[in-house]
């Protein structure tokens, strides 16, 4: 039965109280460990389609008569459009329609960052559209850009009120501590760099607007487009079967979608609006930079008595303030914590969620300053973390639904014990070291989410749900869950997804929520179908329902009888079994979180400042693993992105004008295959006994969180240098080595 409840909803670490309809989940959890299909490696069901170039992405959508869009973007970091005239542009060859801030609400005359859209033209070819944009008569009135986050805070230029958090008395705790470390950490802004740029193709079919879009959230796009264009939600149909990467930047509709929809309305033709790579690097979101002024105090036995953080997120012109303060508040059992978090409003592009927003940045600061503390106290970094382990949620004393961080630490031991061996490889030039960092993050998902399961007379099974598979393998995981519940081989199940008009509501693919939100709904739908099959079998063979189950493609009776599934379903002919399922509620009064630890081995060339990561060991606790093959890929991918964030990636702005200097993929340094270290990946793989019918949490984000701190801590271990600013490029590394040398001279003046 459906119930209306008041519940806490979490996305990317942001909580809100909402009314939501939940359906009770009647199914108990499966036993732990690999089952018949779930928990065993499965190749991606759409792997061949993707590998052969047969998968149709938004970039591949070609509709008859489709027009192409070019966008007029601000060449200034802050400006007002004095005047703008489209007339000349609209008269050029091939041009069908145009729009500007003068005629739509979603564009503005006041532009706050370089690349902000003010007008757009649709033409037969992209070249014609670009030529027409060149012909738009526009007068800019540039202002002086505000680019310094500290200055913005001082001037009160904030995207929202400062967030303050206190427990205990930090100042008193630090005054009584045996050791106090104080340090400033900085992280840079990095770009998502999805291989498929942000884009949409919009076509009107009567009153219905069909939106093909590269998105992480079909239903969110539907609602946002409907709201902004004044349509009913079901008048917008959103289609995305394949998409080429998002990493948090494709959670919303974006102005490009609204531009395409509006131009399509005006031109009476389908319209594509696709960002070029350079536009992508200007205006497709970014992980905001941060400044973190941190303090930690501890007793000589390693008990941390206080943690303090003044955080500034360089949010940009718009966006939200990600929880850079989260790890400091949540990771350890510390009685006295005080944090302040500011979101600086700047003349730079708005931030967007980027794989564990806030926690990637905050974990870098926290886990590095903890290692500075460990060095000061002469305590083993792993022991320091164990000594301050939180047995219950430190925010409000709730029990965890499950937590195996201590088990992660235990499994880390054999790798951690190699540190003498690793250090011993050092010579005059190359210094070797090892470091670790812990991980905490959300990833519990939540209701609502729905799925349908259709079983035909040939015993083929189709899972239908309007979710998206952004490349994580969620399609395959859903098929595995349905196959397990129905006791049939994986190859017998297909999953239809990616179309809001052809399936029920499905959750966003962000916040590590797809498997924990969608998986239980799919299992519940498959369970409903299985129940109906058993009801029919009981009638066909005159058995009691409770004696029947589905296993290995058979209907099995506890009295020893068994019949192939086909022998029952073959009777159906055109009749179908239709199962429906919904995601049940999260466990009341419990905190659902994910945990892990990573260990990095690095080598540093102390002459050139080159850092090489030799190995990353990742041990994560995310509940039950559905598909170990895809799960390992998630971990590897997260670590590769983290290595880019740590060592090479940096969205550079001109300090005077605020223009983005890294607009191309040769200027913006993504990791390549040659930058990848050995990666060892382990999962605790214990179902969370309180969480849904699956016991699975999300895995998309956890692996990217602790890597940069583990690398920085390994660098300190190797060289004694404190690297406190990302990226650790050669200049930063040499600066840190130099600072360490000076510190040594001060510490030993007699020498």
């Amino acid at each position: 039965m459906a119930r209306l409840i008041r519940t806490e909803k979490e996305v990317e670490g942001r909580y809100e109280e909402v009314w939501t309809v939940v359906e009770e989940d009647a199914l108990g959890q499966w036993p732990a460990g690999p089952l018949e299909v779930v928990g065993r490696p499965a190749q991606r069901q759409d792997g061949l389609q993707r590998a052969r170039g047969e998968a149709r992405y938004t970039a591949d959508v070609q509709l008859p008569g489709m027009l192409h869009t070019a966008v007029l973007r601000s060449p200034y970091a802050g400006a007002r459009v004095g005047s703008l005239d489209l007339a000349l542009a609209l008269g050029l060859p091939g041009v069908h329609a145009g729009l500007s801030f003068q005629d739509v609400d979603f564009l503005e005359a006041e532009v706050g960052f370089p690349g902000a859209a003010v007008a757009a033209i649709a033409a037969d070819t992209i070249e014609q559209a670009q030529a027409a944009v060149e012909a738009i008569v526009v007068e800019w009135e540039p202002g002086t850009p505000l680019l310094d986050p500290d200055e913005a805070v001082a001037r009160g230029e904030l995207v929202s009120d400062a967030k303050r958090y206190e427990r205990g008395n930090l100042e008193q705790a630090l005054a009584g501590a045996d050791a106090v470390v104080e340090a400033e950490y900085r992280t840079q802004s990095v770009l998502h760099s999805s291989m498929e740029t942000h884009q949409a193709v919009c076509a009107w079919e009567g009153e219905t607007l069909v939106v093909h879009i590269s998105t992480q959230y079909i239903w969110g796009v539907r609602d946002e487009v409907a709201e902004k264009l004044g349509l009913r939600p079901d008048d917008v149909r959103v289609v995305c079967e394949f998409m080429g990467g998002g990493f948090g930047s494709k959670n919303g509709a974006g102005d490009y979608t609204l531009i395409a929809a509006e131009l399509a309305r005006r031109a009476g033709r389908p319209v594509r609006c696709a960002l070029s790579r350079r536009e992508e690097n200007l205006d497709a979101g970014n992980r905001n930079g941060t400044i973190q002024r941190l303090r930690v105090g501890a007793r000589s036995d390693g008990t941390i008595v206080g943690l303090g953080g003044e955080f500034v997120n360089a949010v940009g012109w718009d966006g939200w303030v990600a929880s850079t303060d989260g790890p400091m508040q949540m990771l350890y059992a510390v009685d006295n914590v005080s944090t302040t978090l500011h979101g600086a409003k700047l003349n730079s592009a708005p931030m967007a969620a980027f794989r564990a927003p806030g926690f990637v940045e905050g974990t870098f600061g926290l886990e590095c300053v903890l290692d500075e503390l460990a060095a000061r106290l002469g305590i083993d970094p792993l022991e320091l973390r164990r000594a301050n382990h939180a047995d219950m949620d430190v925010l409000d004393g709730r029990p965890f639904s499950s937590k195996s961080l201590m088990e992660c630490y235990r499994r880390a031991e054999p790798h951690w014990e190699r540190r003498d061996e690793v250090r011993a490889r050092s010579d005059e030039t190359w210094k070797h070291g090892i470091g670790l960092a812990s991980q905490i993050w959300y990833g519990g998902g939540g209701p609502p989410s729905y799925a349908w399961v259709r079983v035909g007379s040939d015993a083929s099974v189709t899972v239908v749900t309007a979710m998206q598979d952004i490349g994580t393998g969620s399609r395959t995981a859903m098929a595995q869950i349905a196959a397990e519940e129905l006791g049939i081989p994986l190859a017998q199940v297909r999953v239809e997804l990616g179309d809001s008009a052809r399936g029920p509501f499905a959750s966003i693919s962000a916040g590590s929520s797809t498997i924990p939100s969608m998986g239980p709904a799919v299992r519940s739908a498959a369970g409903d179908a299985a129940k109906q099959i058993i009801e029919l079998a009981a009638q066909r063979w005159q058995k009691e329902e409770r004696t029947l189950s589905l296993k290995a493609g058979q209907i099995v009776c506890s009295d020893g009888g068994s019949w192939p599934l086909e022998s029952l379903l073959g009777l159906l002919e055109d009749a179908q079994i239709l199962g429906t399922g919904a995601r049940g509620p999260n466990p009341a009064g419990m905190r659902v979180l994910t945990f892990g630890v990573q260990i990095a081995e690095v080598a540093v060339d102390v002459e050139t400042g080159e850092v090489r990561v030799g190995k990353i060991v990742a041990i994560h606790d995310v509940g039950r693993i559905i598909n170990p093959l895809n799960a390992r890929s998630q971990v590897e991918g997260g670590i590769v992105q983290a290595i880019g964030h740590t060592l090479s990636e940096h969205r550079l702005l001109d300090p005077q004008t605020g223009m983005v200097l890294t607009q191309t993929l040769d200027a913006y340094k993504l990791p390549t295959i040659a930058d990848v270290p050995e990666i060892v990946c382990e999962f605790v793989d214990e179902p969370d006994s309180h969480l849904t019918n699956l016991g699975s949490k999300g895995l998309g984000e956890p692996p990217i969180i602790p890597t940069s701190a583990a690398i920085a801590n390994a660098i300190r271990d190797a060289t004694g240098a404190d690297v406190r600013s990302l990226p650790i490029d050669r200049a930063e590394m040499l600066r840190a080595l130099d600072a360490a040398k000076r510190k040594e001279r001060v510490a030993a003046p007699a020498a």
Partner: protein
Amino acid sequence: MPDLRVNGHDYPLDAEVGRSLADVLRDDLGLTGTKVACGEGHCGACTVQLDGVAVLSCITLVHTVGAREVTTIEGLRDHPLVHAFVRTDALQCGFCTPGQIVSAAALVEAVPEPTREEIRHGMAGNLCRCGAYPNIEEAIATWRD
């Protein structure tokens, strides 16, 4: 009208001077397996082969191809590398994957048993933002298995 030879078929080349090979393949011939991710030769997603040599089709003008045979992912659909990529999970979102496979096919044609170093060197021009690199390396190292 000159011909463009693609995957063993001759197509009449009816394109304005200045158009890229990638655009003609995708827009005129409907061969959308070749992806364009940067459009300026930095990422490798658009890789095709010209007479077996991997080139970036987004910065190759179509009229410079001449008599050379163009091989795209559509011409390599049954290459053992395709199955190796799926078996080892060497793809996530899949947008760079056709380019990766076309590059890898040129590599193993030249060096049938590449070392790990040769793979890393030969594939360093193909970016994968999902970070499927460890499995891409594995797929190429075990492509004949």
